[in-house]
């Protein structure tokens, strides 16, 4: 009886609770949606600010302004046709280390055993090669004869420009006195002992012996002759 009379109240309460629950959910969703919109709004506002700043930067850095600065201060110009490269290979050639010519460095010439001995003394522009023995093997190219090589080191000939350069004291080799200008005319006749000593003496006193013998017509040795070697220069010509 009492339960029956409360039934309608229960209904009302139930419906009210459900409605309230639904409403709460709705409210929650609405608030979430609102905060999302707030974020979206802020994004748009930020985008607007970015746009404004971009416009300002663009205006301050406009091309005409850059050009004006360039004309007045930087003076940069468009690259010339020869400043464009074909590809990575050409670029690499630019990056290659720059060759520094060291005038003191010895000029090392390779030589090979002469093919056949010549009976007659070889005469070239330099005049007769006085010290050459008739049976000494001489190359056809009128290069001064060399003794039969006994070791690879003997195949090395060292030539150098003769210049008035002060040699570093550390490299003054003990055999310096052995080397005398007398022997210079026939470079090949110079007794060659070891490559090491050869290097040492040549760097100690750079001479034109091999250069003048090997390439009689080459100009640089002549040009670089110092006054003290004028006699040699004369024979050289």
């Amino acid at each position, binding site marked *: 009886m009492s339960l029956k009379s409360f039934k309608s109240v229960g209904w009302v309460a139930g419906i009210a609770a459900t409605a309230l629950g639904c409403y709460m959910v709705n409210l929650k969703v609405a608030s979430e949606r609102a905060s999302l919109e707030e974020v979206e709004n802020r994004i748009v506002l930020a985008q607007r600010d970015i746009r404004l700043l971009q416009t300002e930067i663009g205006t301050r850095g406009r*091309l005409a302004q850059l050009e004006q600065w360039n004309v007045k201060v930087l003076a940069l110009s*468009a690259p010339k046709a020869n400043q464009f490269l074909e590809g990575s290979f050409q670029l690499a050639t630019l990056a290659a280390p720059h060759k520094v010519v060291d005038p003191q460095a010895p000029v090392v010439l390779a030589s090979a055993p002469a093919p056949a001995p010549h009976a007659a003394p070889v005469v070239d522009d330099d005049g007769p090669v006085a010290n050459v023995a008739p049976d000494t093997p001489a190359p056809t190219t009128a290069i001064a004869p060399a003794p039969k090589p006994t070791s690879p080191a003997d195949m090395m000939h060292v030539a150098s420009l003769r210049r008035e350069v002060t040699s570093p004291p550390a490299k003054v080799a003990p055999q310096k006195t052995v080397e005398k200008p007398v022997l210079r005319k026939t470079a090949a006749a110079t007794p060659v002992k070891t490559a090491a000593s050869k290097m040492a003496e040549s760097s100690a006193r750079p001479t034109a012996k091999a250069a003048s013998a090997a390439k009689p017509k080459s100009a640089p040795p002549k040009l670089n002759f110092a006054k003290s070697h004028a006699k040699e220069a004369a024979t050289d010509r």
Partner: protein
Amino acid sequence: MNAPTPALVARPERLRLVGQRRQTLAVMHQRLMFGMLLYGGIVALIVLRLMYLAAFGDHAGRKGLVTALVPARGDIVDRNGEPLARTIDAWTIAVQPGKIIGDKLDLARKMAALMPEHDEAGWLQILRSNKPFIYIRRRASPGLVEQINALGDPGLALSREPDRLYPQTDLAAHVLGFTNIDGHGAAGMERAFDETLTNPHTRGKPLVLSINSAVQQALEHELLDAKTTFSALGAAGVVIDIHTGEVMALASLPQLNPNVAGNADMEARFNRSTQGVWELGSTFKPFTVAMALETGKVRSMGQIYPCPLALKAYGRTITDTHPFGRDCSVAEIMEESSNIGTAQIAAQVGATDQERYLKAMGFLDPMPFELKEKGRPLYPREWTPLDVMTVGFGHSIAVSPLHLATGYATLFNGGVFHAPTLLKVGPGHPVAPGRRVFSEETSYKMRALLRLVVMKGTGKQADAPGYRVGGKTGTAEKIVNGRYSKNGLNVTSFAGVFPMDEPRYAMVVMLDEPKATAQTFGFRTAGWNSAPTFGKTVARIAPMLGVRPDMKRDANMAEVLPFVHEKK
């Protein structure tokens, strides 16, 4: 019985009263009921509405729906997306004289210190005027707005209004145009695409032009340099992609700042590249030779024409600036820009074919493209035999520099005319349909001819080493009041194409009334002013346009070199 008898029966009037009352009561009940229902209905309606809003409606604190940034007027950008025109919110300062509460004299003094365009008396006059609202500054700087705000008078109104800004100022001003005070396009692309730029559905996307701003800047700078050096009245320049018809740069001097277009005079607003039509002189000669090649009148670059010192034709004497006085080949006629030789070639082509080809190249009509500022070419009405000769070397016909650039594009892209366009060619905007004017063979043969002009002829100064420039100088006496100027006022132009071994871009440079300088040894022909400008511009813009300089490549000069008389 005499006593009055109680009224046993109600008096009829009384009865009537009761009936009336009841009736009134019923009516009252009815009305009350109706009112209650109405009230209840309204309440129910409100409740229902509230419930509906609670369920589906928006919340109270909701701001305007701004989910995307749509400007009040669409942006205009160049082909690389660099903004050329934008609408931003700018500060506007106005004064409402009726709302001023402070001392007007004091306020006027402070305003004169901040904004020196009026003095104290001037500001006082404005503050005392009867008008309700007066704009005093549009596009005010934030600093000024802050200072005005600090004055603190409610009569000074500060507001933000959308305003058109051209960040690159002068750059491509004649292409962009400008807007009027209502924010509608008044010139250029702003006018041509006003509908697209203001329509809410389309203005969100920027309008992409075919202009390359770096190229445009280089062209404008070199033209300005030339204009200053040669004290010219004006200058014009057009760079066009010959395969698509896209205009890469289009300049007209004197300069115009679209931000303050109202301050510019008509001379500056005039677009010399598209609106102005000029007799462009010898730059027409390649067309005459191409027509002759096409119609079979000229079969080889070695074809010989008599080139006397002067040619009398139909009552007029045609002369040359570099007279031959001997027979000369077609190659030599082009190399030394001989009017006499070209006139004879044109006469061979004839009026009908000449008109047909010029029509096909679009030289007899306003150029079909986006800008509304376009000039109508002037050409002879009768097309007499003398006109045929003079048109052959670019006189008696006036076209715009854009026409000329399009003509060169047509001649060197293989012979197909494409209408020029200021919009970037891409997915939404295909290349304009072409129509064949010249054969590919003619187009190929002309390359060597124009390269010869630059290598050995009148256009030597237009050469940019490595870029294989080919082109033709053009000097025409200016028409002043309907007659050719006798004071030597002329319009010089250089029209050319690069790189000549595989043409990609055509460019026209024009100077209006250049003067002689010491550097030009007193000459004011195109070879001395327009040609070097062309060369300098090519050297700057070609790398930007992706043209690789190459000293080892060139056009096939074997086509023409055998027919050039070598000077001893």
